[in-house]
């Protein structure tokens, strides 16, 4: 049954409700939301994405908005609450403008239809304006008030003045996300991690991209400890136990291979037909077949032994015969390793996984410096016996917190640690938290911080194409960005590659607390005054003014507890790097604006919501893409 509704009220009210939900957690004074489950698990969180995804929403527009927020946050890692605020404010302004001056070039059935068409038109114009002119505007008017931190400064020694800005940026991010108690410690830990991984490649931001893509494999969450127990550990941690008893090996280097398939051919696969005892003079049976496979396996193991391989990693679970033979040959075997960990291992060691176990080439063999088990907290995993800790004296940090765990017969997670002899020394991050939910939250915060840093240092192409079309070829231009003045003077465009004028510099940061919004607001107002009315003949109001007034909603909320400070900050045109304000990334803000405008455009394209009696798609809430929601909505 089709029910007509006023799109504006529905948009406005849906987004207004979401705004009311996140408003109390917004800003430095914002509170946390306590989540409780029916099982009794409780968790505190301030992350906007977390809050929005925890709501029970059946309204298709609400789900669409939450999906947009989530996708934005997977790219930039930050700004989900600001997204909702800006979205609500923009929708209100568009509604006001549209109801004031409906687009009367076409004839419409009713006033609502005219208003809706005007709104759609306004949104399209806004998006076009943002894609074409906004980055230039930001680069010219807003970025000069900030500071560009180049890649060299980013990877400078810890506690140097330039590195201080990076740490401050991270500290303000973690302050907003996790609270101020541990933000300094966590930001130092993150800086340490980045410093260890910085020489992964020559390209500046490639290290950040590598960390971003491989973060699940690089970190290990351990619950039951305070956050201050979090450490960096040398080497990669593989989250599996040894399947065979670990032999103590002193000789180096340790050789390892990775198997992707089954070593012993499986007896019967789905769809196989085994003909037993057919034809031939000898009677054949399954027993003969399995004996033959075991013999071939023995040859394989002997082959590996001759190559000096002592560690075997496998993606799949191998059969008991394989394990027995490996034990006999004094090889350690780890199976059921996750794909992303193995891919990281392969990238770091340079060894490709073996698919055909009969052809083992030298390129398949990885060389390790050491390999040992490590006990990381009382984590219940599978029913695996634990191993007592054989920790070397040099790794004091590992011993410090693990030493308190008595080697009792608890069910524990035991992991293996490797160190790879390549140009980069990999370090793994152990993230501790008091409960599982808390640890998960910290891990998400770390990951979002790396995403945020990646977005900050990723160069934006000079063409006015959408930010989504940024490809790897942009890194060709990064060489021109590495030599930027880093003193306190503003970044002038003369330092840039002359081919690309007024491009947003990577690594541009500025004080938080609404500075970006104020500066952009002034810049947009200047632009709207200077540009003639002929630019927007159909709609008298320039869209830049609309965007300018919508932007002010963010600082208004930040300073909602002290309106006097809002006015004071608004009149200060030169942004000073004050100590109490944090830092934020200009690129992230730009991305946020683009994402919000795209979301507004999509929302306003929805005319009617049709309610069907049967489900069109049987996907879960998390999986439902908004293409399908739009189909449902626009049919």
């Amino acid at each position, binding site marked *: 049954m089709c*029910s007509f*509704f*006023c799109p504006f*009220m*529905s948009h*406005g*009210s*849906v987004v*207004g*409700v*979401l*705004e*009311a*939900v996140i*408003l109390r957690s917004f800003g430095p004074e914002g509170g946390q*939301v306590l989540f409780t489950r029916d099982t009794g698990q409780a968790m505190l969180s301030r992350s906007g994405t977390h809050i929005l995804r925890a*709501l*029970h*929403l*059946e*309204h*298709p527009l*609400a789900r669409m908005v939450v999906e947009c927020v989530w996708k934005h946050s997977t790219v930039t890692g930050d700004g989900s609450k600001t997204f909702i605020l800006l979205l609500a404010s923009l929708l209100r302004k568009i509604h006001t403008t549209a109801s*004031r*001056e*409906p687009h*009367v070039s076409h004839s419409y*059935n*009713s*006033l609502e239809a005219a208003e809706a068409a005007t709104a759609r038109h306004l949104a399209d114009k806004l998006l076009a304006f943002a894609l074409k002119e906004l980055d230039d505007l930001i680069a010219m008017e807003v970025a000069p008030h900030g500071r560009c931190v180049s890649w060299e400064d980013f990877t400078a020694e810890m506690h140097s003045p330039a590195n201080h800005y990076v740490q401050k940026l991270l500290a303000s991010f973690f302050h907003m996300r996790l609270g101020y108690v541990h933000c300094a410690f966590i930001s130092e830990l993150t800086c340490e991690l980045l410093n260890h991984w910085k020489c992964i490649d020559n390209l500046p931001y490639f290290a950040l991209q590598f960390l971003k893509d491989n973060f699940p494999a690089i970190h290990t969450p351990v619950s039951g400890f305070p956050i201050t127990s979090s450490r960096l550990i040398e080497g990669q941690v593989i989250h599996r136990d040894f399947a065979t008893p670990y032999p103590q090996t002193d000789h180096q280097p340790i050789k390892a291979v990775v198997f992707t398939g089954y070593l012993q051919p499986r007896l019967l696969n789905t769809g196989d037909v085994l003909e037993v005892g057919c034809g031939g003079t000898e009677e054949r049976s399954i027993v003969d077949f399995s004996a033959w496979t075991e013999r071939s396996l023995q040859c394989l193991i002997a082959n590996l032994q001759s190559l000096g391989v002592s560690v075997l990693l496998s993606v799949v679970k191998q059969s008991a015969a394989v394990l027995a033979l490996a034990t006999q040959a004094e090889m350690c075997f780890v199976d059921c390793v996750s794909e992303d960990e193995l891919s990281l291992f392969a990238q770091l060691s340079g060894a490709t996984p073996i698919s055909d176990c009969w052809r083992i080439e030298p390129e398949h063999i990885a060389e390790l410096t050491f390999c040992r088990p490590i006990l990381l907290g009382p984590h219940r995993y599978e029913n695996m016996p634990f191993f007592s800790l054989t920790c070397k004296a040099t790794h004091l940090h590992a011993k410090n917190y693990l030493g308190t765990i008595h080697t009792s017969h608890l069910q524990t997670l035991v992991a293996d640690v490797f160190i790879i002899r390549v140009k980069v020394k990999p370090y793994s991050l152990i993230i501790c938290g008091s409960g599982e939910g808390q640890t998960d939250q910290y891990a998400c915060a770390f990951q979002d911080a790396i995403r945020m840093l990646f977005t900050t240092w990723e160069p934006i192409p000079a063409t006015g194409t959408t930010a989504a079309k940024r490809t790897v070829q942009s890194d060709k231009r990064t060489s021109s960005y590495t030599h930027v003045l880093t003193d306190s003077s503003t970044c002038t465009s003369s330092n840039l590659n002359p081919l690309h004028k007024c491009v947003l510099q990577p690594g541009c940061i500025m004080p938080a607390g609404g500075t970006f919004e104020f500066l952009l607001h002034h810049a947009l107002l200047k632009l709207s005054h200077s540009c003639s009315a002929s630019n927007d003949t159909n709609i008298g109001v320039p869209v830049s003014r609309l965007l300018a007034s919508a932007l002010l909603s963010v600082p208004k909320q930040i300073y909602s507890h002290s309106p006097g400070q809002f006015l004071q900050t608004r009149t200060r045109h030169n942004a000073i790097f004050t100590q109490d304000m944090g830092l934020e990334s200009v690129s992230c803000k730009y991305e946020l604006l683009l994402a919000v405008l795209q979301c507004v455009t999509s929302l306003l394209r929805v005319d009617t*919501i049709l*309610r069907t009696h049967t489900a069109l798609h049987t996907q879960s809430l998390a999986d439902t893409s908004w293409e399908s929601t739009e189909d449902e909505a626009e049919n």
Partner: protein
Amino acid sequence: MALNGEKFVVACFCKDSKWTSRSHYHCPHCKFRAFTRSAVFKKHLKSKHGIQSHMRREKASMIYKKVENSTGESKDEQMGVLKELQSWEGDEDFEWEPPSEAEMKVIQARRERQDKISKLMGDYLLKGYKMLGDCCDVCGTILLQDRQQKKYCVSCQELDSDIDKDNPALNAQAALSQVRERQLAAQSPAPSQTPELNGGPSNGQPSVSVPQPRPEHCEGAAAGGRALLPPPAVPPPPAAPSTTALAPTRPAVCPQNPALRPVLQEAEEAVLTKLRWATTQLQGAASLEASIQLCSLITSCANSLRSLKELSQ
């Protein structure tokens, strides 16, 4: 309501009339008449001024929906009338004019209500309610569903509805004011001339009369941001039910008397009388409801006395 396309009157929230927190309509032809209920206003227009009026588009669409769902022989006729209305609306050459102050207040009130609804819904969502994809049939707000699968509309069940307050069956105050309006309508219409208060009267102007509740005056007052003189309380007409106090005394339109002192004194005496009466009634009140209403009557009498004292100073 539109008056044959020439004039239209919108709901107002000005403080000039006796209803400060309720929306009311000012009759453009009478000097001082204001009405809270559209039906009474319509009747007044027809009976006093011979004007046929009908309602604007928002209400038309709601009525359209109701007619659609209703059954009966007159349904087709109603549909026909409504379709004519809508076509009339479509043909109208719509030129946007800036909203008047009254309309601005209406818009502001609606926005505040919407904000309140959003905030309440946000709180419920955080408590674990589910936001459904359906809208309420009555008010159009998005429905919520709690853990027990019960549907819940925030604006209908929690906030005071805009429409319900006009319904005499639901609201005792509405009933009382309806009675009063009928009495006023039945009285001989001889509105005495009152001094114009448009030009920017200062607060010290010696006039106890209520400023004329005309639309222009409302706008002027709102634009100037002047503090309007609080209307002094007047005892209800003797015909009002004195045995059962249904509602506290509403400040009514006082007689237009240019002399200040005697009127003030009279008003004070009247209020004091009422206060005394209410006190005696309160002492003998048996039911809770009556006691509450008598107490609120006493409160409003006290407020009126205070305003009168301020006026006399």
